[in-house]
């Protein structure tokens, strides 16, 4: 049996008195696409951010390709925070795309993509630029390579952010509501870019509210509510025939609001 690409076991996280994640279990195999859906405040973004340890967790485990992230066990079997160098090593292999793109505004699109290649992967200037250009071409933005983020639409900025993450050649991609900050007309271009990644066999965990996209692209939908995954299965079943009343109610509201 092969090791899952992402393995989450009994994950718990609290902010002060409020427990955001109350024992989450989730496994994602290599080349699997899983969409994480749930109401706001359910803990879905926090869960995603625990996967690359942007958010620390209190109990449980997150493993990437079998390796625990964020903590290390010494010879005495006691868990302590991971050495910063080891954490960086692991994060290089995990791409992340944020809701608000988080491009560096003082760098052109090309520099945004090339800078991590130079500083983290240690590529030479020309080589980094070449790979960055190839990545921008792939997301259809070769002609915008020298534009600063402020001159790009939201959809273009998000595609640059995807190119930046992909250029690092990660094993896993995490998407945190990648289309929530976009005008409806710009959503499609970003979803297309993510779809083409799925077709190439990228392992992805995607927090989204795009149900149609989830239905088409995801192999599984995991539904999270109040810090627990209450349903996890093929999209068709979770979207239409969930045994959980809370899940059925959520999608019913969604259907009602979107019928016109």
């Amino acid at each position, binding site marked *: 049996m092969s090791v899952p690409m992402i393995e989450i076991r009994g994950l718990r996280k609290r902010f002060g008195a409020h427990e955001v994640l109350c024992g989450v279990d989730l496994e994602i195999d290599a080349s699997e696409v899983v969409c994480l859906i749930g109401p706001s405040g359910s803990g879905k973004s926090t869960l995603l951010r625990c996967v*690359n340890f*942007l958010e620390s967790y209190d109990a449980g485990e997150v493993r990437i390709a079998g390796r625990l992230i964020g903590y290390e066990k010494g010879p005495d079997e006691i868990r302590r925070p991971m050495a*910063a160098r080891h954490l*960086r*090593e*692991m*994060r*290089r292999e*995990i*791409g*992340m795309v*944020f809701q*608000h793109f*988080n*491009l*560096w*505004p*003082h*760098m*052109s699109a*090309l*520099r945004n993509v090339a*800078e*991590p290649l130079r*500083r*983290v992967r240690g590529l030479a200037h020309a080589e980094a*630029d070449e790979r960055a250009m190839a990545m921008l071409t792939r997301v259809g933005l070769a002609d915008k390579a*020298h*534009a*600063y983020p*402020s*001159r790009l639409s939201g959809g273009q900025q998000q595609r640059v*952010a995807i190119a*930046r*993450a992909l250029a*690092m050649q990660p094993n896993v991609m995490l998407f945190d509501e990648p289309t929530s900050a976009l005008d409806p007309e710009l959503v499609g271009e970003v979803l297309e870019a993510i779809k083409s990644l799925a077709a190439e066999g990228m392992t992805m965990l995607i927090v989204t509210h795009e149900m149609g996209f989830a239905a088409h692209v995801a192999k599984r939908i995991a539904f999270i509510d109040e810090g627990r995954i209450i349903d996890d299965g093929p999209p068709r079943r979770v979207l239409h025939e969930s045994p959980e009343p809370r899940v059925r109610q959520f999608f019913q509201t969604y259907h009602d609001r979107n019928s016109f």
Partner: protein
Amino acid sequence: MSLDVLIHYAPSLIGGFGVTVLCWSLGGALGIALGFVIALMFRLRIAPLSWTLRVFVEVFRGTPFLVQLFLLYAGGPYVGLRLSATAAGVIGLGVYSSAYFAEIFRAGFAAVPVGQIEAAMSVGMAPRDTLLRVTLPAALIAATPPIVNMLVVLSKETVVLSIITVPELMYQMQTMAAETFTAFDSIFAMAAFYWLLVEATSRLGRRLEARVTAFLQEEARPA
């Protein structure tokens, strides 16, 4: 107002203006450098260090520059610190303004959206590269307008140096006024010099600002 009086005193006024510009630029440079170091040390988040720096900033922002300068120049020799008037003036301006510049840089760092730093973390960028490539450029861009503003304020604080006999513009002007009983002529002459300095500073400042925020308007030139 007599033109020949002005012409007669022109060399000393111009010389005084030179000393003013010198003290201001050296003091400002010292203040920016010190303030930057202080702001960086705040970021280390070492409690006793932060606490000490906070006291330093509050003391130098909370007391009049005149008092600080007088204590440095007149009180310095009592603790073995013997400085020429001009050196005391430059150091005084530098230390005084460093308290303000430290706060400007601190605010600049605070203005960098956390998402930009998270983006650097998520690709595995080391803290040093994150600081040099992401945080620092963004912080300096945010800090540029208040830095220029503080330099303008500082240029006018230089008049205080006259009380410790630095031969700057105010000092020369007072000499001229005392010798010729032409209080208004000399004060107008002085205002004109300061206006020139402030105007030049703010023009340069605007150009600098336009330059560092160019990415908000233009496309980058191909490398």
